Protein backbone atom coordinates (compact mmCIF):
# COMPACT_ATOMS: atom_id res chain seq x y z
CA UNK A 1 0.00 0.00 0.00
CA UNK A 2 1.20 3.40 -0.90
CA UNK A 3 -0.63 5.68 1.49
CA UNK A 4 0.86 9.09 2.03
CA UNK A 5 1.15 9.50 5.78
CA UNK A 6 0.61 12.81 7.46
CA UNK A 7 3.32 14.27 9.68
CA UNK A 8 1.23 13.35 12.70
CA UNK A 9 1.31 9.65 11.92
CA UNK A 10 4.42 8.67 13.89
CA UNK A 11 3.74 10.84 16.96
CA UNK A 12 0.16 9.55 17.08
CA UNK A 13 1.29 5.95 16.72
CA UNK A 14 3.81 6.43 19.50
CA UNK A 15 1.18 7.97 21.76
CA UNK A 16 -1.23 5.11 21.08
CA UNK A 17 1.44 2.54 21.87
CA UNK A 18 2.34 4.31 25.12
CA UNK A 19 -1.30 4.32 26.21
CA UNK A 20 -1.66 0.66 25.28
CA UNK A 21 1.48 -0.17 27.21
CA UNK A 22 0.18 1.75 30.21
CA UNK A 23 -2.91 -0.44 30.23
CA UNK A 24 -1.43 -3.76 29.21
CA UNK A 25 1.88 -3.85 31.10
CA UNK A 26 0.26 -4.14 34.57
CA UNK A 27 -1.88 -7.00 33.28
CA UNK A 28 1.19 -8.72 31.90
CA UNK A 29 3.17 -8.06 35.10
CA UNK A 30 0.38 -9.52 37.19
CA UNK A 31 0.19 -12.66 35.08
CA UNK A 32 3.94 -12.97 35.11
CA UNK A 33 4.00 -12.57 38.89
CA UNK A 34 1.79 -15.63 39.15
CA UNK A 35 4.42 -17.86 37.59
CA UNK A 36 7.62 -16.48 39.16
CA UNK A 37 9.17 -18.44 41.98
CA UNK A 38 9.68 -15.29 43.98
CA UNK A 39 8.28 -12.02 42.72
CA UNK A 40 10.77 -9.90 44.63
CA UNK A 41 13.66 -11.74 43.03
CA UNK A 42 12.00 -11.49 39.60
CA UNK A 43 12.08 -13.72 36.54
CA UNK A 44 15.77 -14.49 37.11
CA UNK A 45 14.70 -16.47 40.18
CA UNK A 46 12.96 -18.97 37.86
CA UNK A 47 9.44 -19.72 36.69
CA UNK A 48 7.03 -22.18 38.23
CA UNK A 49 3.44 -23.36 38.01
CA UNK A 50 3.42 -24.23 41.72
CA UNK A 51 1.38 -21.16 42.62
CA UNK A 52 -1.22 -21.92 39.98
CA UNK A 53 -1.52 -25.49 41.27
CA UNK A 54 -1.82 -24.25 44.84
CA UNK A 55 -4.56 -21.77 43.90
CA UNK A 56 -6.42 -24.48 42.00
CA UNK A 57 -6.22 -26.77 45.04
CA UNK A 58 -7.30 -24.14 47.56
CA UNK A 59 -9.76 -22.09 45.54
CA UNK A 60 -11.13 -24.55 42.99
CA UNK A 61 -14.53 -24.38 44.68
CA UNK A 62 -14.78 -20.62 44.08
CA UNK A 63 -14.04 -21.07 40.38
CA UNK A 64 -16.61 -23.81 40.05
CA UNK A 65 -19.22 -21.84 41.99
CA UNK A 66 -18.65 -18.81 39.78
CA UNK A 67 -19.07 -20.90 36.64
CA UNK A 68 -22.17 -22.49 38.10
CA UNK A 69 -23.68 -19.10 38.95
CA UNK A 70 -22.75 -17.67 35.55
CA UNK A 71 -24.48 -20.53 33.73
CA UNK A 72 -27.56 -20.31 35.94
CA UNK A 73 -27.57 -16.55 35.49
CA UNK A 74 -27.42 -17.00 31.73
CA UNK A 75 -30.37 -19.41 31.85
CA UNK A 76 -32.41 -16.95 33.91
CA UNK A 77 -31.63 -13.95 31.72
CA UNK A 78 -32.49 -15.94 28.60
CA UNK A 79 -35.83 -17.07 29.97
CA UNK A 80 -36.70 -13.64 31.38
CA UNK A 81 -34.85 -11.27 29.08
CA UNK A 82 -35.64 -12.54 25.58
CA UNK A 83 -39.43 -12.57 26.04
CA UNK A 84 -39.18 -9.19 27.81
CA UNK A 85 -37.27 -7.72 24.85
CA UNK A 86 -39.88 -9.19 22.51
CA UNK A 87 -42.74 -7.51 24.38
CA UNK A 88 -40.83 -4.22 24.61
CA UNK A 89 -40.10 -4.33 20.87
CA UNK A 90 -43.77 -4.91 20.11
CA UNK A 91 -45.31 -2.26 22.28
CA UNK A 92 -43.75 1.10 22.46
CA UNK A 93 -45.64 3.27 24.90
CA UNK A 94 -45.04 5.12 28.14
CA UNK A 95 -45.31 1.99 30.23
CA UNK A 96 -42.81 -0.06 28.23
CA UNK A 97 -40.36 2.83 28.20
CA UNK A 98 -40.68 3.11 31.98
CA UNK A 99 -40.04 -0.63 32.31
CA UNK A 100 -37.00 -0.34 30.07
CA UNK A 101 -35.61 2.44 32.28
CA UNK A 102 -36.37 0.55 35.48
CA UNK A 103 -34.54 -2.50 34.15
CA UNK A 104 -31.37 -0.47 33.93
CA UNK A 105 -31.60 0.68 37.56
CA UNK A 106 -29.46 -2.11 39.04
CA UNK A 107 -26.66 -1.03 36.68
CA UNK A 108 -26.93 2.62 37.69
CA UNK A 109 -27.32 2.00 41.42
CA UNK A 110 -24.10 0.92 43.20
CA UNK A 111 -23.95 -2.85 43.59
CA UNK A 112 -23.48 -2.51 47.32
CA UNK A 113 -26.79 -0.66 47.60
CA UNK A 114 -28.64 -3.31 45.61
CA UNK A 115 -27.05 -6.04 47.70
CA UNK A 116 -27.98 -4.25 50.92
CA UNK A 117 -31.57 -3.91 49.72
CA UNK A 118 -31.71 -7.64 49.01
CA UNK A 119 -30.28 -8.46 52.44
CA UNK A 120 -32.65 -6.12 54.24
CA UNK A 121 -35.61 -7.63 52.42
CA UNK A 122 -34.72 -11.33 52.28
CA UNK A 123 -32.10 -11.61 55.01
CA UNK A 124 -34.54 -13.48 57.23
CA UNK A 125 -35.20 -16.21 54.66
CA UNK A 126 -32.68 -18.59 56.26
CA UNK A 127 -31.65 -21.15 53.67
CA UNK A 128 -32.22 -18.82 50.75
CA UNK A 129 -30.01 -16.15 52.32
CA UNK A 130 -27.26 -18.69 53.00
CA UNK A 131 -27.30 -20.44 49.61
CA UNK A 132 -25.80 -19.63 46.21
CA UNK A 133 -29.28 -18.80 44.86
CA UNK A 134 -29.14 -15.55 46.82
CA UNK A 135 -26.04 -14.52 44.88
CA UNK A 136 -27.73 -15.66 41.67
CA UNK A 137 -30.66 -13.29 42.28
CA UNK A 138 -28.26 -10.37 42.57
CA UNK A 139 -26.41 -11.36 39.41
CA UNK A 140 -29.65 -11.75 37.44
CA UNK A 141 -30.79 -8.29 38.57
CA UNK A 142 -27.48 -6.84 37.46
CA UNK A 143 -27.12 -8.63 34.10
CA UNK A 144 -30.74 -8.75 32.91
CA UNK A 145 -30.69 -5.27 31.31
CA UNK A 146 -27.68 -6.25 29.22
CA UNK A 147 -29.55 -9.21 27.75
CA UNK A 148 -32.74 -7.20 27.20
CA UNK A 149 -30.94 -4.29 25.55
CA UNK A 150 -28.85 -6.50 23.34
CA UNK A 151 -31.86 -8.47 22.04
CA UNK A 152 -34.02 -5.36 21.82
CA UNK A 153 -31.40 -3.62 19.66
CA UNK A 154 -31.54 -6.44 17.10
CA UNK A 155 -35.33 -6.69 17.22
CA UNK A 156 -35.62 -2.95 16.60
CA UNK A 157 -33.30 -3.13 13.61
CA UNK A 158 -35.40 -5.75 11.79
CA UNK A 159 -38.99 -5.09 10.75
CA UNK A 160 -40.31 -7.51 13.34
CA UNK A 161 -43.96 -6.59 12.93
CA UNK A 162 -44.03 -7.20 9.18
CA UNK A 163 -41.99 -10.39 9.49
CA UNK A 164 -44.54 -11.72 11.94
CA UNK A 165 -47.43 -10.59 9.78
CA UNK A 166 -45.79 -12.47 6.92
CA UNK A 167 -45.57 -15.59 9.07
CA UNK A 168 -49.16 -15.18 10.21
CA UNK A 169 -50.41 -14.81 6.64
CA UNK A 170 -48.76 -18.16 5.94
CA UNK A 171 -50.69 -19.77 8.76
CA UNK A 172 -48.12 -19.71 11.58
CA UNK A 173 -49.48 -19.50 15.12
CA UNK A 174 -47.70 -17.65 17.91
CA UNK A 175 -45.51 -20.53 19.02
CA UNK A 176 -44.45 -21.36 15.46
CA UNK A 177 -43.47 -17.80 14.62
CA UNK A 178 -41.77 -17.09 17.95
CA UNK A 179 -39.50 -20.12 17.71
CA UNK A 180 -39.28 -20.32 13.91
CA UNK A 181 -38.93 -16.66 12.98
CA UNK A 182 -38.40 -14.32 15.95
CA UNK A 183 -35.70 -16.25 17.85
CA UNK A 184 -33.56 -17.23 14.83
CA UNK A 185 -33.64 -13.64 13.57
CA UNK A 186 -32.42 -12.14 16.84
CA UNK A 187 -29.74 -14.80 17.30
CA UNK A 188 -26.86 -12.33 17.06
CA UNK A 189 -28.43 -10.24 19.85
CA UNK A 190 -28.97 -13.29 22.02
CA UNK A 191 -25.38 -14.49 21.53
CA UNK A 192 -23.93 -11.05 22.25
CA UNK A 193 -26.18 -10.67 25.31
CA UNK A 194 -25.30 -14.15 26.57
CA UNK A 195 -21.56 -13.54 26.39
CA UNK A 196 -22.01 -10.23 28.15
CA UNK A 197 -24.09 -11.82 30.91
CA UNK A 198 -21.60 -14.65 31.50
CA UNK A 199 -18.66 -12.27 31.56
CA UNK A 200 -20.31 -9.83 33.94
CA UNK A 201 -21.51 -12.59 36.24
CA UNK A 202 -18.06 -14.18 36.42
CA UNK A 203 -16.42 -10.89 37.32
CA UNK A 204 -19.12 -9.42 39.58
CA UNK A 205 -17.59 -8.38 42.91
CA UNK A 206 -19.41 -5.40 44.46
CA UNK A 207 -22.70 -7.06 45.09
CA UNK A 208 -21.35 -10.52 45.64
CA UNK A 209 -19.10 -9.29 48.46
CA UNK A 210 -22.20 -8.62 50.54
CA UNK A 211 -24.37 -11.42 49.23
CA UNK A 212 -21.94 -14.29 49.77
CA UNK A 213 -21.38 -16.24 52.97
CA UNK A 214 -18.12 -17.94 54.03
CA UNK A 215 -19.55 -21.08 52.45
CA UNK A 216 -20.37 -19.45 49.12
CA UNK A 217 -17.37 -17.38 47.94
CA UNK A 218 -17.19 -16.76 44.20
CA UNK A 219 -14.02 -16.35 42.17
CA UNK A 220 -13.69 -12.55 42.55
CA UNK A 221 -14.43 -12.80 46.27
CA UNK A 222 -11.79 -15.50 46.65
CA UNK A 223 -9.42 -13.33 44.67
CA UNK A 224 -9.90 -10.43 47.05
CA UNK A 225 -9.33 -12.82 49.93
CA UNK A 226 -6.11 -14.10 48.39
CA UNK A 227 -4.83 -10.60 47.68
CA UNK A 228 -5.54 -9.52 51.25
CA UNK A 229 -4.13 -12.46 53.12
CA UNK A 230 -1.70 -14.48 50.99
CA UNK A 231 1.53 -14.06 49.09
CA UNK A 232 1.47 -11.78 46.05
CA UNK A 233 2.38 -14.73 43.82
CA UNK A 234 -0.75 -16.61 44.92
CA UNK A 235 -3.02 -13.69 44.16
CA UNK A 236 -1.36 -13.26 40.81
CA UNK A 237 -1.67 -16.94 39.96
CA UNK A 238 -5.34 -16.65 40.86
CA UNK A 239 -5.63 -13.69 38.47
CA UNK A 240 -3.99 -15.83 35.82
CA UNK A 241 -6.71 -18.46 36.18
CA UNK A 242 -9.36 -15.77 35.97
CA UNK A 243 -7.84 -14.44 32.75
CA UNK A 244 -7.71 -17.89 31.22
CA UNK A 245 -11.46 -18.15 31.78
CA UNK A 246 -12.49 -14.61 30.91
CA UNK A 247 -10.31 -13.67 27.92
CA UNK A 248 -11.76 -16.24 25.50
CA UNK A 249 -15.21 -14.93 26.51
CA UNK A 250 -14.20 -11.35 25.80
CA UNK A 251 -12.77 -12.29 22.42
CA UNK A 252 -15.93 -14.22 21.59
CA UNK A 253 -17.99 -11.21 22.62
CA UNK A 254 -16.13 -8.92 20.22
CA UNK A 255 -16.49 -11.51 17.51
CA UNK A 256 -20.22 -11.94 18.06
CA UNK A 257 -20.89 -8.23 18.27
CA UNK A 258 -20.24 -7.59 14.60
CA UNK A 259 -21.34 -10.56 12.53
CA UNK A 260 -22.97 -8.33 9.91
CA UNK A 261 -19.93 -6.22 9.22
CA UNK A 262 -17.79 -9.33 8.93
CA UNK A 263 -20.16 -10.96 6.49
CA UNK A 264 -20.28 -7.81 4.41
CA UNK A 265 -16.52 -7.50 4.37
CA UNK A 266 -16.23 -11.12 3.32
CA UNK A 267 -18.71 -10.58 0.53
CA UNK A 268 -17.02 -7.41 -0.67
CA UNK A 269 -13.56 -8.92 -0.86
CA UNK A 270 -13.11 -11.80 -3.28
CA UNK A 271 -10.71 -14.44 -1.96
CA UNK A 272 -7.18 -13.71 -3.02
CA UNK A 273 -5.30 -16.12 -5.23
Amino acid at each position, binding site marked *: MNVKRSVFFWPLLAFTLVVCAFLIVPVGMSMLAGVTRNYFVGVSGGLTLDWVVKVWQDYRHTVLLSVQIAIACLACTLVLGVPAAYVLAHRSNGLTRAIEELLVMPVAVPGLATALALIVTYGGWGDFRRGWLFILVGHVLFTLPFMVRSVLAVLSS*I*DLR*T*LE*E*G*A*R*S*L*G*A*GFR*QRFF*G*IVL*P*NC*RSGIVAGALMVVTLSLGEFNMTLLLHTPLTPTLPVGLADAYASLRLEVGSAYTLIFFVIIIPLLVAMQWAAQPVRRAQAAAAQPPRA
Partner: protein
Amino acid sequence: MSGIPIRVSRCSKTFADGTRALSPIDLDIAAGETIVLLGPSGCGKTTTLRIIAGLEAPDADGKVLFDNVDVTAIPIEKRNVGMVFQSYALFPNLSVEGNIGYGLKVRGMPPAQRQGRVQEMLAMMRLEPFAHRHIDQLSGGQRQRVALARALAPRPRVLLLDEPLTALDAKLREDLRVDIDRLLRSLNVTTVYVTHDQAEAMALGDRIAVMDHGRIAQVGAPEEIYFNPIDDFVAGFVGTMNRVRGEMREGRLQIGVGTTPGGAAGEDLPDAARSELLFRPEDVLLVDAAAAQFSGQLISAFFLGDHTRLVIDIGAEQTITARVPRRAMLRAGAIVHCALEPHALLRLPRKESFS
Protein backbone atom coordinates in the same frame (compact mmCIF):
# COMPACT_ATOMS: atom_id res chain seq x y z
CA MET B 1 -56.27 -22.81 -7.44
CA SER B 2 -59.81 -21.61 -7.77
CA GLY B 3 -60.85 -18.27 -6.46
CA ILE B 4 -63.68 -17.46 -4.13
CA PRO B 5 -65.86 -14.37 -4.05
CA ILE B 6 -65.17 -11.80 -1.35
CA ARG B 7 -67.62 -9.34 0.08
CA VAL B 8 -66.58 -6.36 2.17
CA SER B 9 -69.66 -5.05 3.89
CA ARG B 10 -69.96 -1.76 5.73
CA CYS B 11 -66.33 -1.88 6.82
CA SER B 12 -65.08 1.24 8.49
CA LYS B 13 -61.94 1.67 10.56
CA THR B 14 -61.28 4.07 13.38
CA PHE B 15 -57.86 3.77 14.97
CA ALA B 16 -57.25 3.91 18.70
CA ASP B 17 -56.19 7.56 18.54
CA GLY B 18 -59.53 8.46 16.96
CA THR B 19 -58.42 8.94 13.35
CA ARG B 20 -60.91 7.61 10.83
CA ALA B 21 -58.95 5.68 8.25
CA LEU B 22 -61.97 4.29 6.49
CA SER B 23 -65.56 5.40 6.13
CA PRO B 24 -67.97 2.47 5.80
CA ILE B 25 -67.22 0.86 2.46
CA ASP B 26 -68.89 -1.92 0.49
CA LEU B 27 -67.04 -3.91 -2.11
CA ASP B 28 -67.94 -7.10 -3.93
CA ILE B 29 -65.12 -9.02 -5.54
CA ALA B 30 -66.01 -11.83 -7.92
CA ALA B 31 -64.35 -15.24 -7.77
CA GLY B 32 -61.07 -15.23 -9.66
CA GLU B 33 -61.20 -11.51 -10.27
CA THR B 34 -58.24 -9.13 -9.85
CA ILE B 35 -59.33 -5.94 -8.22
CA VAL B 36 -56.93 -3.06 -7.75
CA LEU B 37 -57.33 -0.59 -4.91
CA LEU B 38 -55.89 2.62 -6.30
CA GLY B 39 -55.38 5.90 -4.53
CA PRO B 40 -52.91 8.35 -3.05
CA SER B 41 -51.20 7.57 0.25
CA GLY B 42 -53.53 7.83 3.20
CA CYS B 43 -56.64 7.05 1.14
CA GLY B 44 -57.40 3.86 3.08
CA LYS B 45 -56.41 1.33 0.45
CA THR B 46 -53.89 -0.50 2.61
CA THR B 47 -56.29 -0.46 5.57
CA THR B 48 -58.93 -2.06 3.35
CA LEU B 49 -56.44 -4.72 2.28
CA ARG B 50 -55.46 -5.41 5.88
CA ILE B 51 -59.10 -5.78 6.86
CA ILE B 52 -59.62 -8.31 4.06
CA ALA B 53 -56.43 -10.08 5.16
CA GLY B 54 -57.46 -10.20 8.81
CA LEU B 55 -54.56 -8.08 10.06
CA GLU B 56 -56.98 -5.34 11.13
CA ALA B 57 -60.48 -5.73 12.47
CA PRO B 58 -63.15 -3.44 11.02
CA ASP B 59 -65.27 -1.29 13.35
CA ALA B 60 -68.24 -3.00 14.97
CA ASP B 61 -70.63 -3.00 11.99
CA GLY B 62 -68.21 -4.21 9.36
CA LYS B 63 -68.14 -7.70 7.94
CA VAL B 64 -65.82 -9.56 5.61
CA LEU B 65 -67.22 -12.60 3.80
CA PHE B 66 -65.14 -15.19 1.99
CA ASP B 67 -67.29 -17.37 -0.24
CA ASN B 68 -70.39 -16.10 1.61
CA VAL B 69 -68.99 -17.19 4.99
CA ASP B 70 -68.41 -14.48 7.59
CA VAL B 71 -64.68 -14.51 8.40
CA THR B 72 -64.58 -11.20 10.30
CA ALA B 73 -63.67 -12.86 13.58
CA ILE B 74 -61.20 -15.32 12.07
CA PRO B 75 -57.53 -14.30 12.43
CA ILE B 76 -55.30 -14.15 9.37
CA GLU B 77 -53.58 -17.40 10.37
CA LYS B 78 -56.76 -19.31 9.62
CA ARG B 79 -58.08 -17.37 6.62
CA ASN B 80 -55.88 -19.14 4.08
CA VAL B 81 -54.81 -16.00 2.29
CA GLY B 82 -51.52 -15.38 0.50
CA MET B 83 -50.01 -12.01 1.13
CA VAL B 84 -47.16 -10.07 -0.46
CA PHE B 85 -45.86 -7.08 1.49
CA GLN B 86 -44.28 -3.92 0.17
CA SER B 87 -41.08 -4.77 2.04
CA TYR B 88 -41.58 -8.46 1.07
CA ALA B 89 -41.12 -9.54 4.73
CA LEU B 90 -38.99 -12.49 3.67
CA PHE B 91 -37.44 -14.43 6.54
CA PRO B 92 -33.71 -13.62 6.70
CA ASN B 93 -32.99 -16.79 8.67
CA LEU B 94 -34.27 -19.07 5.90
CA SER B 95 -33.09 -19.82 2.37
CA VAL B 96 -35.23 -19.18 -0.70
CA GLU B 97 -36.53 -22.75 -0.44
CA GLY B 98 -37.13 -22.36 3.26
CA ASN B 99 -39.14 -19.20 2.70
CA ILE B 100 -41.29 -20.73 -0.02
CA GLY B 101 -41.86 -23.88 2.00
CA TYR B 102 -42.61 -22.08 5.27
CA GLY B 103 -46.38 -21.91 4.79
CA LEU B 104 -46.45 -25.60 3.94
CA LYS B 105 -44.30 -26.52 6.91
CA VAL B 106 -46.44 -24.73 9.47
CA ARG B 107 -49.46 -26.46 7.98
CA GLY B 108 -47.76 -29.77 8.66
CA MET B 109 -47.29 -30.95 5.08
CA PRO B 110 -44.98 -34.00 4.93
CA PRO B 111 -41.44 -33.12 3.74
CA ALA B 112 -41.58 -35.12 0.50
CA GLN B 113 -44.79 -33.49 -0.63
CA ARG B 114 -43.56 -30.11 0.54
CA GLN B 115 -40.38 -30.47 -1.51
CA GLY B 116 -42.45 -31.22 -4.60
CA ARG B 117 -44.58 -28.11 -4.17
CA VAL B 118 -41.53 -25.93 -3.50
CA GLN B 119 -39.89 -27.19 -6.70
CA GLU B 120 -43.07 -26.42 -8.58
CA MET B 121 -43.10 -22.84 -7.25
CA LEU B 122 -39.38 -22.37 -7.96
CA ALA B 123 -39.97 -23.42 -11.56
CA MET B 124 -43.03 -21.22 -11.95
CA MET B 125 -41.11 -18.17 -10.72
CA ARG B 126 -37.88 -19.10 -12.54
CA LEU B 127 -36.04 -19.23 -9.22
CA GLU B 128 -34.43 -22.68 -9.46
CA PRO B 129 -30.82 -21.39 -9.57
CA PHE B 130 -31.39 -19.50 -6.34
CA ALA B 131 -33.10 -22.22 -4.31
CA HIS B 132 -30.34 -22.45 -1.70
CA ARG B 133 -29.42 -18.80 -1.53
CA HIS B 134 -30.05 -16.64 1.44
CA ILE B 135 -32.40 -13.70 1.15
CA ASP B 136 -29.65 -11.09 1.45
CA GLN B 137 -27.96 -12.60 -1.60
CA LEU B 138 -30.92 -11.79 -3.87
CA SER B 139 -31.71 -8.74 -5.98
CA GLY B 140 -34.90 -6.76 -5.46
CA GLY B 141 -36.68 -8.42 -8.37
CA GLN B 142 -35.69 -11.89 -7.16
CA ARG B 143 -36.92 -11.12 -3.65
CA GLN B 144 -40.20 -9.99 -5.12
CA ARG B 145 -40.59 -13.29 -6.96
CA VAL B 146 -39.71 -15.25 -3.81
CA ALA B 147 -42.37 -13.29 -1.93
CA LEU B 148 -44.95 -14.18 -4.58
CA ALA B 149 -43.90 -17.83 -4.62
CA ARG B 150 -44.07 -17.98 -0.82
CA ALA B 151 -47.56 -16.49 -0.81
CA LEU B 152 -48.81 -18.84 -3.54
CA ALA B 153 -47.20 -22.09 -2.33
CA PRO B 154 -49.96 -23.03 0.14
CA ARG B 155 -52.56 -22.49 -2.61
CA PRO B 156 -54.40 -19.65 -0.89
CA ARG B 157 -58.05 -18.86 -1.57
CA VAL B 158 -57.21 -15.19 -1.90
CA LEU B 159 -54.05 -13.39 -2.94
CA LEU B 160 -53.39 -10.00 -1.39
CA LEU B 161 -50.64 -7.72 -2.68
CA ASP B 162 -49.67 -4.52 -0.91
CA GLU B 163 -47.69 -2.28 -3.28
CA PRO B 164 -45.56 -5.25 -4.34
CA LEU B 165 -43.60 -3.36 -7.01
CA THR B 166 -43.09 0.00 -5.30
CA ALA B 167 -39.62 -0.81 -4.01
CA LEU B 168 -38.28 -1.62 -7.48
CA ASP B 169 -36.90 0.59 -10.23
CA ALA B 170 -39.05 1.52 -13.23
CA LYS B 171 -37.72 -0.94 -15.80
CA LEU B 172 -37.90 -3.92 -13.46
CA ARG B 173 -41.34 -2.84 -12.34
CA GLU B 174 -42.61 -3.05 -15.89
CA ASP B 175 -41.12 -6.50 -16.45
CA LEU B 176 -42.54 -7.85 -13.23
CA ARG B 177 -45.91 -6.29 -13.95
CA VAL B 178 -46.08 -8.45 -17.08
CA ASP B 179 -45.05 -11.51 -15.07
CA ILE B 180 -47.64 -10.87 -12.40
CA ASP B 181 -50.34 -10.27 -14.99
CA ARG B 182 -49.62 -13.60 -16.71
CA LEU B 183 -49.50 -15.34 -13.38
CA LEU B 184 -52.80 -13.98 -12.13
CA ARG B 185 -54.56 -14.84 -15.41
CA SER B 186 -53.26 -18.40 -15.34
CA LEU B 187 -53.97 -19.03 -11.65
CA ASN B 188 -57.46 -17.61 -11.58
CA VAL B 189 -57.08 -16.77 -7.90
CA THR B 190 -59.13 -13.92 -6.43
CA THR B 191 -56.65 -11.08 -6.06
CA VAL B 192 -56.71 -7.76 -4.28
CA TYR B 193 -53.86 -5.53 -5.40
CA VAL B 194 -53.04 -2.25 -3.68
CA THR B 195 -51.09 0.44 -5.52
CA HIS B 196 -50.75 4.18 -5.94
CA ASP B 197 -49.45 3.71 -9.49
CA GLN B 198 -52.25 4.16 -12.00
CA ALA B 199 -50.32 2.48 -14.82
CA GLU B 200 -49.99 -0.63 -12.69
CA ALA B 201 -53.67 -0.48 -11.82
CA MET B 202 -54.67 -0.13 -15.48
CA ALA B 203 -52.44 -3.00 -16.56
CA LEU B 204 -53.40 -5.52 -13.89
CA GLY B 205 -56.93 -4.81 -12.75
CA ASP B 206 -60.02 -6.50 -14.08
CA ARG B 207 -61.61 -3.73 -12.12
CA ILE B 208 -60.19 -0.76 -10.27
CA ALA B 209 -61.53 0.75 -7.10
CA VAL B 210 -60.32 4.32 -6.86
CA MET B 211 -60.10 5.39 -3.24
CA ASP B 212 -59.93 8.83 -1.69
CA HIS B 213 -60.12 9.97 1.92
CA GLY B 214 -61.25 6.59 3.23
CA ARG B 215 -63.99 6.09 0.66
CA ILE B 216 -64.31 4.27 -2.62
CA ALA B 217 -64.86 7.02 -5.17
CA GLN B 218 -65.51 4.75 -8.13
CA VAL B 219 -65.31 1.06 -9.02
CA GLY B 220 -65.13 -0.08 -12.60
CA ALA B 221 -63.13 -1.57 -15.44
CA PRO B 222 -59.97 0.40 -16.28
CA GLU B 223 -61.58 1.81 -19.45
CA GLU B 224 -64.61 2.93 -17.51
CA ILE B 225 -62.50 4.68 -14.90
CA TYR B 226 -60.43 6.37 -17.56
CA PHE B 227 -63.16 7.41 -19.98
CA ASN B 228 -66.02 7.95 -17.57
CA PRO B 229 -64.60 9.21 -14.31
CA ILE B 230 -67.38 9.78 -11.86
CA ASP B 231 -66.02 12.89 -10.20
CA ASP B 232 -63.29 15.44 -10.10
CA PHE B 233 -60.98 13.35 -7.96
CA VAL B 234 -61.06 10.26 -10.20
CA ALA B 235 -60.73 12.41 -13.29
CA GLY B 236 -57.66 14.08 -11.85
CA PHE B 237 -56.02 11.02 -10.28
CA VAL B 238 -56.29 8.59 -13.17
CA GLY B 239 -54.37 9.84 -16.16
CA THR B 240 -53.73 13.48 -16.94
CA MET B 241 -56.73 15.75 -17.35
CA ASN B 242 -57.00 19.17 -18.89
CA ARG B 243 -59.43 21.51 -17.22
CA VAL B 244 -60.44 24.60 -19.10
CA ARG B 245 -62.93 27.25 -18.08
CA GLY B 246 -64.95 27.94 -21.19
CA GLU B 247 -67.65 26.67 -23.50
CA MET B 248 -67.85 24.88 -26.82
CA ARG B 249 -69.90 27.15 -29.09
CA GLU B 250 -70.52 26.46 -32.78
CA GLY B 251 -67.46 24.28 -33.04
CA ARG B 252 -65.13 26.81 -31.43
CA LEU B 253 -63.80 26.65 -27.93
CA GLN B 254 -64.55 29.89 -26.17
CA ILE B 255 -61.97 30.30 -23.47
CA GLY B 256 -63.06 32.08 -20.31
CA VAL B 257 -66.45 32.92 -21.80
CA GLY B 258 -67.85 36.38 -21.06
CA THR B 259 -64.49 37.93 -20.37
CA THR B 260 -61.98 39.65 -22.51
CA PRO B 261 -58.91 37.51 -23.08
CA GLY B 262 -56.40 38.11 -20.37
CA GLY B 263 -59.04 39.70 -18.14
CA ALA B 264 -60.23 38.49 -14.81
CA ALA B 265 -61.29 35.09 -16.07
CA GLY B 266 -64.12 33.32 -14.34
CA GLU B 267 -65.31 36.17 -12.23
CA ASP B 268 -67.93 37.25 -14.73
CA LEU B 269 -69.08 33.73 -15.38
CA PRO B 270 -72.46 32.89 -13.93
CA ASP B 271 -71.25 29.50 -12.74
CA ALA B 272 -67.61 28.75 -13.27
CA ALA B 273 -67.89 25.06 -12.44
CA ARG B 274 -70.62 24.46 -14.99
CA SER B 275 -68.55 25.74 -17.81
CA GLU B 276 -65.43 23.76 -16.99
CA LEU B 277 -64.37 21.52 -19.86
CA LEU B 278 -62.44 18.33 -19.24
CA PHE B 279 -60.45 16.45 -21.86
CA ARG B 280 -57.41 14.18 -22.05
CA PRO B 281 -54.07 15.32 -23.53
CA GLU B 282 -54.14 12.57 -26.18
CA ASP B 283 -57.47 13.91 -27.50
CA VAL B 284 -55.88 17.19 -28.54
CA LEU B 285 -54.98 17.26 -32.26
CA LEU B 286 -52.68 19.72 -33.98
CA VAL B 287 -54.53 21.06 -37.06
CA ASP B 288 -54.40 23.84 -39.66
CA ALA B 289 -55.57 27.28 -38.71
CA ALA B 290 -58.76 26.77 -40.73
CA ALA B 291 -59.86 23.68 -38.79
CA ALA B 292 -58.81 25.02 -35.39
CA GLN B 293 -61.22 24.99 -32.49
CA PHE B 294 -58.77 27.02 -30.50
CA SER B 295 -55.24 28.30 -30.74
CA GLY B 296 -52.50 28.99 -28.30
CA GLN B 297 -48.84 29.67 -27.77
CA LEU B 298 -46.47 26.81 -27.11
CA ILE B 299 -44.77 27.16 -23.74
CA SER B 300 -42.67 24.02 -23.87
CA ALA B 301 -42.33 20.79 -25.80
CA PHE B 302 -40.93 17.66 -24.12
CA PHE B 303 -39.75 15.01 -26.52
CA LEU B 304 -40.37 11.68 -24.73
CA GLY B 305 -39.46 9.23 -27.46
CA ASP B 306 -42.74 7.61 -28.33
CA HIS B 307 -44.60 10.89 -28.10
CA THR B 308 -44.12 14.58 -27.49
CA ARG B 309 -45.76 16.39 -24.63
CA LEU B 310 -46.75 19.97 -25.33
CA VAL B 311 -47.72 22.61 -22.81
CA ILE B 312 -49.84 25.26 -24.52
CA ASP B 313 -50.97 28.64 -23.24
CA ILE B 314 -54.50 29.07 -24.57
CA GLY B 315 -55.12 32.49 -23.08
CA ALA B 316 -57.00 33.71 -20.06
CA GLU B 317 -54.19 32.38 -17.85
CA GLN B 318 -54.99 28.83 -18.77
CA THR B 319 -52.65 26.12 -20.00
CA ILE B 320 -53.36 22.68 -21.36
CA THR B 321 -51.24 19.64 -21.99
CA ALA B 322 -51.32 17.87 -25.34
CA ARG B 323 -49.80 14.57 -26.23
CA VAL B 324 -48.92 14.39 -29.90
CA PRO B 325 -47.46 11.38 -31.68
CA ARG B 326 -45.74 13.06 -34.61
CA ARG B 327 -42.18 14.17 -34.66
CA ALA B 328 -43.37 17.69 -34.99
CA MET B 329 -40.47 20.08 -34.79
CA LEU B 330 -42.04 22.61 -32.51
CA ARG B 331 -40.30 25.41 -30.73
CA ALA B 332 -41.44 27.19 -27.63
CA GLY B 333 -43.17 30.41 -28.54
CA ALA B 334 -44.76 29.06 -31.72
CA ILE B 335 -48.49 29.49 -32.27
CA VAL B 336 -50.28 26.14 -32.51
CA HIS B 337 -53.80 25.42 -33.71
CA CYS B 338 -55.71 22.71 -31.94
CA ALA B 339 -58.88 20.68 -32.25
CA LEU B 340 -60.37 18.04 -29.99
CA GLU B 341 -61.28 14.51 -31.02
CA PRO B 342 -65.04 13.92 -31.23
CA HIS B 343 -66.38 12.81 -27.82
CA ALA B 344 -63.24 14.13 -26.16
CA LEU B 345 -65.16 16.24 -23.68
CA LEU B 346 -65.89 14.34 -20.48
CA ARG B 347 -68.85 14.91 -18.23
CA LEU B 348 -68.66 14.15 -14.52
CA PRO B 349 -71.85 12.59 -13.19
CA ARG B 350 -70.97 13.69 -9.66
CA LYS B 351 -70.04 17.31 -9.23
CA GLU B 352 -68.88 17.16 -5.64
CA SER B 353 -65.75 15.42 -4.72
CA PHE B 354 -65.44 13.97 -1.22
CA SER B 355 -62.67 16.28 -0.29
